[in-house]
């Protein structure tokens, strides 16, 4: 098992996302919060990266920087070889809350990206709507929501809404998939089932995925590489390769290697916590 920290490799050409000496500070003056200290991160095309760490360590900040929702205070964020936003990259996002629109059926919710993102937007106005419908119904079926396309979000359970939210993040074939603790609010069984679904979706479509999570088991199950972060100021303190063969199973998570990996990550995070926060 390869668990050794990855040495800082020189930037390769096929890096899809690259953070170069990026920092981020929220607010100004006295209320300034230094969310992210100088950070370098490189994600290859089609890779699956997990960011783990305590709350307030800047995980979500990295996500927002890569998506272009916020701008770095200093440093450069490159996506597809150019400054973020310069290249029209299709991005899908899923959050801890499903954030579905309550006035739309599941199908219309999942349809939303197709109404907005090029090139689907033009086709949506054209004749391909029935084709889109079929595609969405197939996608919903893939996550176990066959027959629920005409339901409204509030008629479903949290797990079902979260599945639909994943579909919405994936329907426009994003090159970049941003997952901000999407399984955090679910019960354990639903969560594990969705890990499996997520893995299937990743293996068939191969988007570049950045997963933010508190759950070390989740990170080890899903990701190719885990970046451990430290809080105040947020920075990456270690990167671990996860080399378990795919498709991974829940049974694998009881494997001694798997357990020792999660345990080691746990200790890293605990030791990196600011002293005043440790409970005696």
């Amino acid at each position, binding site marked *: 098992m390869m668990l050794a920290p990855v040495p800082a490799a020189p930037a390769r050409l096929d890096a899809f996302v690259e953070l170069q000496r990026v920092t981020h500070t929220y607010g100004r003056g006295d209320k300034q919060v230094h969310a992210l200290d100088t950070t370098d991160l490189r994600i290859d095309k089609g890779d699956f990266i997990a960011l783990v760490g305590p709350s307030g360590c800047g995980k979500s900040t990295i996500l*927002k920087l890569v*998506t*272009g*929702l916020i701008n770095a205070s200093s440093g450069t964020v490159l996506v597809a070889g150019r400054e973020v936003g310069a290249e*029209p990259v299709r*991005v*899908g*996002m899923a*959050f801890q*809350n499903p*954030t579905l*629109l*309550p*006035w739309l059926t599941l199908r219309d919710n999942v349809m*939303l*990206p197709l*109404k*907005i*993102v090029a090139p689907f937007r033009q086709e949506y106005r054209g004749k391909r709507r029935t084709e889109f419908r079929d595609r969405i119904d197939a996608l919903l079926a893939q996550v176990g929501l066959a027959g629920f396309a005409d*339901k*409204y979000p*509030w*008629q479903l359970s949290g797990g079902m809404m979260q599945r639909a939210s994943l579909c*919405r993040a994936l329907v*426009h074939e994003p090159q970049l998939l*941003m997952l901000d603790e999407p399984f955090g609010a679910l019960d354990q069984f639903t969560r594990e089932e969705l890990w499996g679904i997520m893995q299937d979706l990743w293996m068939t479509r191969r988007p570049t995925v950045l997963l933010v999570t508190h759950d070390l088991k989740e990170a080890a199950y899903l990701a190719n590489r885990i970046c451990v972060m430290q809080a105040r100021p947020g920075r990456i303190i270690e990167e671990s390769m996860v080399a378990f063969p795919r498709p991974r199973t829940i049974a694998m998570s009881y494997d001694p290697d798997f357990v020792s990996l999660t345990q080691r990550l746990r200790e890293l995070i605990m030791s990196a916590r600011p002293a005043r926060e440790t409970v005696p």
Partner: protein
Amino acid sequence: MSPQLRRRFASTALIVGFFVAWELLCLAFGVKDIVLPRPSQIVITLIQRMPAIWPHALQTLYTTLVGFALGILAGVCLGALIGSSRLAYDVAYPLLVGFSSIPKVAVVPIFVLWFGAGTVPAVLTAMILCVFPIVVNVATGLATTEPELEDVMRALKASKLDILVNVGLPRTMPYFFASLKVAVTQAFVGTVIAETVASNRGIGNLMMIASSSFDVPLVFAGLLVLAALGVVLYVTFSFIEVRVTGWALRKDEFAMG
């Protein structure tokens, strides 16, 4: 009897009971017409003098609806502007509160000064009375859109217009329609106030003239017409509200139907 049916029955009984009690108390204590006419007298007056009342009722309804329509237009535009950003919301809110706390009766003389007595000041009064609930609700609806929802849209490179059309406006609809119910009643109040002060047509004016000639049953007949119109307008917009924004009530009947 289902609970819903029982509730309806009870509220109908209360309304009928109110008028019956009124009638009986007037008879029992021998209250004179000129002080408080009995409901039966009011209804008779209403029927007998319908030809005279009818044009006034139409005038009041017309004024109210025109003022209301203008109010919606102005309210939605202003509300969208104020709700478009947190900054605009915070900056504009104090002024809005200041304006909305002015007693609107006080502006009628100003409108009369500008436009002369008649329909125009009544329409404008109706408009300014109903515009504030709409502005506040639309602005609140837009300003409280979940930031994550906007993040999803922005990550999709949606334009401001895309976000407004796909998220902001639909999300604001329940607030908007809730405000319409209030606004239409307010517009109605505005119309009647203006008609009472400065007009020669409309139910408000009719009631003024009737009261100055001590035709008290006619005053009450006018009041009854106003109540009826108000209820009809309120019910109409409640109905539209349920049809359009049923999702916000999260009733299963809406989804199935």
